[in-house]
């Protein structure tokens, strides 16, 4: 039955995607992208990927709409020219779709437990996690410990992207449009109800973010989700109270420090493994008891991930919002 729900939702997903591409109004496309994100999060949840669904929830609802709207405010809301080489593109895309559809007939059926993907390392992870790492959430165990290198790489990609956005958008604008400072940047300060409710909710979102951060060993959660949630809390504060007050509460210097310290913390824990006589990112040696060492290592690197993601996402948001006022 749940599979049927999934199929229904996937159909809605395709309809939404077609509408996103079809509409000429970019604002509408961004709104539909919000629905797309909700739909795909439900699909992830139905497909047993609670952690992934939580990440998509935190990123899709809190961050991505705000970023796209920020970019639209700086560029344009309407596509003027529409499509180029429509028929050629359609032919190429349709034939590629047919090739892909043909290829799917070689895939194992949905949910087949004998599929090759389930035969390789995954059973080992599931079997050995209680023994080596002893935390309930296997996803966190694989993310932080077994495949720590991978995650380190991803954290540095996020870090680099953040630096890139800051480089691009902190340059002095040569373009038109000197806007009055007080016109934008004050957020919704004049609107009493959003302001009161927003201020009420910010601490709860922060608290929930910290819960997700530190409960990530036991339930869905971890540094990536928590970072996005905490960034969403500050974005909410910026929306209801204005940019300058948010920057006064958490200045850009602090965000830079957060980004750098998070990445360094992750790398530092890895190096500590070498110093203590084992290999890079082996947490077993961090404590006398290997399992306790794993616990400590995972908490530390998840904290590092959370710090970097918070710092990067907030810096990106501030970079877009500040551009609005130059």
């Amino acid at each position, binding site marked *: 039955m749940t599979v049927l729900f*999934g199929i229904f939702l*996937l159909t809605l997903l395709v309809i939404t995607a077609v509408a996103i591409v079809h509409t000429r109004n970019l604002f509408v496309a961004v709104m539909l992208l919000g629905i797309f994100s909700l739909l795909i999060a439900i699909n992830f949840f139905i497909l047993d990927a609670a952690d992934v669904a939580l990440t998509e929830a935190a990123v899709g609802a809190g961050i991505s709409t705000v*970023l796209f709207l920020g970019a639209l405010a*700086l560029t344009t809301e309407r596509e003027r020219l529409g499509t180029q080489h429509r028929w050629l593109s359609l032919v190429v895309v349709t034939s590629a779709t047919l090739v892909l559809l043909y290829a799917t007939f070689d895939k194992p059926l949905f949910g087949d437990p004998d599929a090759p993907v389930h035969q390789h390392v995954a059973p080992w992870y599931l079997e050995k996690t209680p023994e080596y790492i002893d935390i309930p959430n296997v996803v966190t165990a694989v993310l932080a410990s077994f495949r720590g290198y991978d995650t380190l790489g991803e954290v540095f990609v996020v870090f680099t992207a953040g630096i890139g956005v800051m480089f691009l958008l902190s340059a002095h604008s040569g373009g038109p449009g000197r806007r009055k400072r007080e016109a934008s940047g004050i957020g919704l300060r004049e609107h009493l109800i959003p302001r009161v409710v927003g201020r009420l909710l910010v601490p709860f979102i922060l608290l929930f973010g910290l819960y997700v951060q530190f409960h990530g060993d036991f339930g869905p959660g971890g540094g990536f989700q928590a970072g996005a949630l905490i960034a969403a809390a500050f974005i909410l504060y910026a929306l209801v109270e204005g940019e300058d007050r948010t920057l006064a509460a958490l200045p850009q210097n602090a965000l830079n420090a957060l980004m750098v310290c998070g990445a360094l913390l992750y790398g530092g824990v890895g190096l500590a493994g070498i110093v203590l006589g084992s290999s890079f990112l082996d947490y077993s040696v961090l404590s006398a008891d290997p399992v306790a060492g794993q616990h400590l290592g995972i908490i530390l690197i998840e904290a590092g991930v959370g710090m970097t993601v918070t710092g990067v996402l907030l810096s990106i948001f501030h970079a877009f919002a500040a551009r609005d006022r130059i």
Partner: protein
Amino acid sequence: MELLGLYHYWVFAVLLMIGFYAVVAKVNLVKKLIGVSLFQSAVFLLYITMSKVTGGTAPILQEGMVDPVFSNPLPQVLILTAIVVGISTTALGLGIVVRIKEEYGTIEEHEIQEIDRR
């Protein structure tokens, strides 16, 4: 169920190509980025689909579970990080688009090429 056993993969293929169509056929740069993020989501969906095991549950151990079947945690790990990386890189792309708009005054590909040719 046999009939619909590949439905998820078909949806993946169609979504992937819808995103691809937006990238190749649309002129507006923001729309191209939206297409890229659709493309990304399609890949996410493929991985998570592969991780599902019938009758399984999320790979988070819980007390009192009798002989549980877990879905595959590995694709979930890959996609979990990829979502955050995806939004960061999309933001980078949007940053570039904003700069293009400021330098060229437009974000339509044709017009940018026209200005470059001059």
